């Protein structure tokens, strides 16, 4: 006999594979972006401003973060607010399965999709453009897990504070653009110095970007960056748990 939670996770996984747009944005788009940028010769030139790395090297951790942003901000919140709005959560509340099991299913499915996307990005970067593999495996793992945790925290907090799908879209958009910017998707935040850089480092994706870059270069990430991500994660989950409504 399958437990209700396992059955729920299996069903949500199956349903996720039917969301073609989500699959594209999470699994394909980050790698596609990396390949398109890598085709531009300027991206393959070593640059002393970036610590004698190429732009394409910087874009590997950035596209890893991009898949997290896509999953946590663009695809998971609308699914969850939809489940709430159409009464799926309320309906589950009348069964022996708790409605929280469907949230767990969604979080897990998105986390797994992001992990798969990251592997594709790193492998394609390595094979096609010779980007370096993470130098510090332990450091990379720590930075990655925290970045994923803070991402899913953003997603659940967006779901929690949005009373309906429409508001959810606005809130998600408001979170999306600064996230893309601080993760370095628009351009590497390494171009900034001084106070601006310090402020970016205090954002979830600014810190995540620093930590993944450090670990990529073989160093253990700065404790400050890990602490920033950890702090945001706690804050976001507290907001999510406090504000979340089942109907």
């Amino acid at each position, binding site marked *: 006999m399958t437990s209700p939670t*396992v*059955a*729920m996770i299996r069903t949500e996984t199956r*349903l996720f594979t*039917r*969301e073609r747009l989500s699959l594209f944005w999470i699994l394909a788009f980050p790698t596609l972006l990396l390949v398109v940028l890598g085709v531009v010769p300027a991206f393959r030139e070593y640059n002393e401003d970036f610590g004698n790395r190429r732009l394409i090297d910087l874009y590997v951790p950035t596209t890893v973060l991009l898949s997290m942003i896509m999953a946590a901000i663009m695809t998971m919140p609308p699914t969850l607010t*939809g489940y709430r709005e159409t*009464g*799926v959560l309320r309906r589950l509340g*009348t069964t022996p399965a708790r409605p929280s099991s469907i949230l767990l299913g969604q979080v897990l499915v998105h986390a797994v999709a992001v992990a798969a996307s990251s592997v594709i990005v790193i492998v394609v970067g390595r094979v096609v453009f010779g980007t370096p593999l993470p130098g510090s495996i332990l450091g990379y793992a720590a930075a990655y897990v925290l970045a994923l945790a803070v991402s899913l925290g953003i997603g659940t907090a967006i779901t929690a504070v949005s009373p309906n799908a429409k508001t959810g879209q606005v809130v998600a958009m408001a979170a999306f653009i600064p996230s893309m910017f601080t993760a370095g998707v628009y351009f590497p935040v390494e171009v900034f110095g001084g106070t601006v850089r310090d402020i970016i480092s205090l954002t979830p994706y600014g810190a995540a970007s620093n930590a993944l870059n450090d670990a990529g270069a073989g160093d253990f990430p700065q404790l400050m960056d890990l602490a920033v991500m950890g702090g945001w994660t706690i804050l976001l989950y507290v907001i999510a748990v406090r504000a979340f409504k089942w109907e």
Partner: protein
Amino acid sequence: MHQERATAVVVDGLRKTYGAKVAVDEISLNVYEGEIFGILGPNGAGKSTTVESIAGLRVGDKGRIRVHGIDPRTDRAAVTEVLGVQLQEAKLQPKITVKEALELWSAFYPDPEPWAPLAERLGLGGHLQQRFEHLSGGQQQRLSIALAMIGRPRVVVLDELTTGLDPRARREVWDLVRDVRDRGVTVLLVTHSMEEAQTLCDRIAIVDSGRIRALDTPAGLIDAASAATITTFETEVAIDLAALRELDGVAAARSENGLVTVEGAEGVALAVVEALRTQGVTPQRFRVAAGTLDAAYLDLTETITAMEALR
């Protein structure tokens, strides 16, 4: 006659407020095992709040609820095993197929009913691979009933299950509800449709503004109303309507284009015949019809909300 029957659901003095608004104001009712019990009332009367409290989705401010002896407030998990619920306008994941939904719900319960025969009986056998978003309203409702039934509940709550269905789909769903009851399951039916309540229910509680205004069998409710019978006839000469209105039990008498309508209690028709004879009038096309639940309902809930819901 109901006194000896075992009780499936007990609601005793339930009260629930949302801020200053009183949604449910001291509702008490007993649902007997194996009956179809209707909760009838206009939108916003407190019907859904009452059944959602029974299902454990809401916690009343006051009052006691038992479902086969289980308190849904303290033991919600146990209630979910004896109570199947179809909620008003609650949908499923848009891309889940009928089969997947049935399999998923089967995994929720310790001893689920085999879903394939259930789907067959509900006319879903040919739609197992279809996604929820592509089902018609009637199919969605039938799937919803199947899911409410899959855990072999002893009581099933059906909340506004025919809202938005076409007349044929409504009748199909009604047959299903009778089928469910015939299998020994107690049905708690929430509706704002008087036709539905009158057709299906063994007993009906009429709820308005959070209170029970009447609780009886459909026939009992109609009999108790001032217009239990409707007598109509035509005459060629003018008659003395005032004399008819003074008859015992007559609630209303009116004449339109030669058609006279007299509403009143049981037995009014005989008194009308008698009165016409003394007036020397021979009625034509003399007909007596039973009053409808509509009239009884209006009698009981003479409120603006009721009038709006009936429009």
